């Protein structure tokens, strides 16, 4: 490979360092923390706190976060916004999974209705928000509808694919022991589809979070949407950034939670 000895030695040394940073838990943690520190330092340097209107430093943003938490406005806003998310997500799962199973089991349903869901995946849903707003007004129901429109197609499509991908052997096996259609569905098809459904649930949560923010910003209610609008009106960039980052971080936590569940279920169905 390399011909001169010193560089090979240096290469070997660098290789060892790289290995200790990437192949051990603490090494990886240190590396990631360093990356985070570099990012925060760059942010701090890029920020300019001389006027409130400019891009804020990390410290100013953190201060704004503390203030918003202390006076209770951010937790209250998140709580109100969270209600729409929870309701919407429950509808996404409760409606999406049965629809996916229906599409997978009945070719006619597949042909007739699945294009609508691929349509919802392809289209920027925000363009439909004014229609939702016109039909339902500035209401909780309107915000929930937006969240459902953003997320549901991911659950429907992934559930349908998961159900369709089941190995035919498993169904034949159950049939050979005399299992009926409904028993096969509940004992074989649905359990086998759980990992795929979980993948859909994770993707749908990501979209539902976007839908939640869109609903908040367009169909302004009492949640974080009105908080952002108010802070924007008073030109508090740092506070708006703090709210945005809080939403993103909470979103990431929720997503990791669902991903953990997904991984758990994935392990159970590793078919060799």
């Amino acid at each position, binding site marked *: 490979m390399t011909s001169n000895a010193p560089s090979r030695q240096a290469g070997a040394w660098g290789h060892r360092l790289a290995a200790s940073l990437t192949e051990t838990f603490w090494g990886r943690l240190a590396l990631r923390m360093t*990356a985070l520190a570099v990012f925060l330092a760059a942010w701090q340097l890029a920020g300019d706190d001389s006027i409130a209107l400019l891009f804020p430093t990390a410290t100013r943003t953190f201060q704004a976060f503390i203030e918003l938490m202390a006076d209770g406005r951010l937790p209250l806003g998140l709580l109100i916004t969270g209600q729409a998310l929870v309701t919407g997500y429950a509808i996404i799962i409760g409606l999406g999974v049965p629809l996916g199973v229906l599409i997978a089991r009945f070719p006619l349903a597949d042909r007739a209705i699945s*294009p609508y*869901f691929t349509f919802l*995946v392809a289209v920027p849903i925000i*363009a439909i928000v004014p229609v939702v707003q016109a039909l339902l007004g500035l209401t909780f129901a309107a915000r929930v509808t937006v969240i459902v429109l953003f997320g549901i197609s*991911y659950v429907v499509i992934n559930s349908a694919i998961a159900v369709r991908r089941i190995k035919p052997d498993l169904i034949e096996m159950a049939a050979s022991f005399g299992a009926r259609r409904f028993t096969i569905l509940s004992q074989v098809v649905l359990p086998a589809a759980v990992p795929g459904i979980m993948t859909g649930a994770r993707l749908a949560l990501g979209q539902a979070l976007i839908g939640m923010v869109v609903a908040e910003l367009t169909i302004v209610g009492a949640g974080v949407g009105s908080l952002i609008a108010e802070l*924007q009106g008073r030109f508090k960039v740092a506070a708006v950034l703090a709210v*945005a980052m809080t939403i993103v971080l909470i*979103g990431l936590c929720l997503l990791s939670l669902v991903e953990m569940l997904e991984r758990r279920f994935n392990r159970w169905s590793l078919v060799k």
Partner: protein
Amino acid sequence: MNRVLLRTGRWFNPPFLLSLAVLAGVWEIAGRSADILTLPPLSAVLAAFARLWTSGALTAPLLDSTLALLTGLAISLAAGSVIGIGMGLSRVVDVAVGPFVKAGLSAPMIAFVPVFMMIFGIGSQTRIATVIAFSVFVVATNAATAVRSTDPALLEMARSFGAGRWRILGEIRLPAGAPYFLAGLRLGVARGIKGLINGEVLIAIMGMGGLVKKYGTVFSMDQLYAVILLIVLYAALAVGGVTLLGRLFLTEYKK
């Protein structure tokens, strides 16, 4: 996700067209009979679309939006490829920035749009920033996969002929990973369009998204539906176009 689209997205089949026709019929009848403000008949929407199109009211926003989209995508492609190739080539880079890229891929980046608006102002920069925020991470992820997924046998072959790290990147890894790059581009375009429209609707005065806001706030429903139709067609054409280009390129390439 887009693989999913291709599998189940059979648009041209009789049951779907029938259900579409029934829906269109119900829409038309409901729009005509029940004099609801929010539901103009389908024919009125199509007429509005034709009127807006011929009057040229859509042309300027369409071009304006496209320019912003292309700018944002170009930046995403460049930055995303650099980050992704770095992740694919170096385990250290991968471990250091991988989690952040993954976070950016799934996090609701749209929450930053109000911040963009305050920093960049009510202008084109804001929506370009939104396009980038929506598309850069998926480009990076796919670029990393593209570089990483090279067949080890090909790498050994190249090494046995004495190829160095950079020659291997140029001669083996990048060409072999082309399908993943293209997938990244396609997803980037799909997400970028969503970012663009999201940004424009929230900024409220620019491009196609601005038209949505404009007609939406004055309850000019036939025009609003016409603009939504335009956006849907635009998104479908752009994503379809990139998919088609990719497929043409790949069939050439596999020969």
